[in-house]
């Protein structure tokens, strides 16, 4: 009697575990990092999140600008040491993307990727004067610029898993249009 109950219970546990494995299989976990704003200027503001300008087409990333171009350092956003792998080759730009050379690297311009675990990445796009691949903590990656598919100098940052942009990293900390993009302000908690 007792052993039949035990076998039944164990069977149930096994079924639950199998269901969990199936449900969780697509969402292998990563580590939560902290991301601060990319510009050490109190004037830096978030101006696009899930939608361009917070009301336009789909974007699912943070755009942060302070109204200048090629003047301010474009800082690595993650708090702690990480490797920022550079993808560059785009001429500095402060204007809008025109088809061809201005839309370099598929629109990303000069950009940096932090490659995490289980397909997670964190990217920072559109830099001017990129300094090369670095492993560092909030160091200057280049200057705030407008390389690639960009209308006016800004920082675009996104958090992807297997190439799909996620929004939880900034929505969970309440970042929205108008939030400070200063480097002392936490704008998100990306997964890596």
């Amino acid at each position, binding site marked *: 009697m007792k052993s039949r109950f035990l076998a039944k219970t164990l069977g149930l546990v096994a079924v639950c575990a199998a269901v969990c494995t199936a449900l969780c299989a697509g969402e292998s976990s990563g580590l939560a990092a902290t991301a601060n704003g990319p510009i*050490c200027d109190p004037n830096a503001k978030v101006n696009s999140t899930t939608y361009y300008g917070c009301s336009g087409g789909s974007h699912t990333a943070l755009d942060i600008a302070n109204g200048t171009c090629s003047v*301010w350092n474009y800082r690595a956003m993650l708090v702690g040491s990480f*490797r920022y792998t550079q993808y560059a080759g785009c001429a500095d730009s402060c204007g809008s993307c025109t088809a061809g050379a201005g839309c370099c690297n598929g629109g990303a311009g000069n950009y940096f990727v932090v490659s995490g675990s289980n397909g997670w990445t964190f990217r920072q796009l559109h830099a001017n004067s990129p300094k090369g691949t670095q*492993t560092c903590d909030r160091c200057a990656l280049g200057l705030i610029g407008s390389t690639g598919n960009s209308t006016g100098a800004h920082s675009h940052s996104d958090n992807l898993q297997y190439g799909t942009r996620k929004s939880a990293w900034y929505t969970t900390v309440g970042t929205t249009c108008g939030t400070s993009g200063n*480097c002392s302000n936490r704008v998100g908690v990306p997964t890596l």
Partner: protein
Amino acid sequence: MKTQRIALVLVPLWLAFGPASAADVQSKPSGSAAASSALSLQKECSLTAQLETLRAGLGRGSGPLKTFLRKQLRERAATLPEAELRAAFERERDPMMIEELSGALAARMARHNEPSALRSVLERAVQDRDPAARAAALRGLRGSASVEAMEKLGGVDYTALIKDSSKEVRQAVVANLLSESAEVYFGHDRAVSEQAIAVALGARSGPSADPALAAKLLGEISTESVGAAAVTELLSLLDAPPEPSLGALRAAVVLALGGVPASESARVVRRLLDLYRQDDSQVVRRAVLGALCRLQMAKALPTLEALRPIDLHLSKDIDAWQQALRTGLQEWTLLAREKQRILPDAPQPH
């Protein structure tokens, strides 16, 4: 009481000015007003006072206060003159504070990407007569890009430091390499992984031999991006006659081999199949089964079946791996988790 008051004074100063940098504008001097007021405030809050607060907090404070004070020093390190921080580090004799000041110099290096900040830390890790001080200096580097910094600076690296006569120093070497590989690079960095393999080779023999630490390092380090030469080194570790007391080290070598890049997998699989026949240690054979699954994924189903008659004690393990493989999971971490769910590993003796 005094400690708490000082901490309360420091909190708003750090929150307001800690992470700011005066050098962020490349051509226009706007923002200099904020920078100069930060500098004048920092004079009132001297490094000496901050270090005494940290010392008292680490001795008597609560867990959260300790965490806060340590983080506070590391954040502030970015804006302190390197010479002032270095002088404080060189004066310090208490290992607990040596670790924090080493961590502050490492944080400064990371913020400015200037390895020179680590020069005095590395000198001390090699030369201090107190083994506890050497170990503390090393532990401060945890979570930084220390392997790259050592390479840029020249001179000492972890393969030399693992030869230290003090176990505490050797433990710091292994902990640093594991955390750097996992937390800074998420296992992707070739240089850190290859250095870890070289360190493990160095830890096998000689007057400071430490096979248990070598096993820990190889059992946990990522080998996903190592080159052919490092794989050859790992394979050479399996060539010695299977000494029973070194079973854990051989199993760790097998685990490391299980994670090598696909381009290396064919020769590794061949060697592991031989090893399964030659080495009758259960812990080694269990490691081989896991490594074969990792290297071959679904193709391991018949491979495991062919190994079944060699050791009937491991039939349950083979069943569990085969059941896990049949789920079709394509990611090693998920596959390994599934196998653990079906048949958990026996707890390892420590």
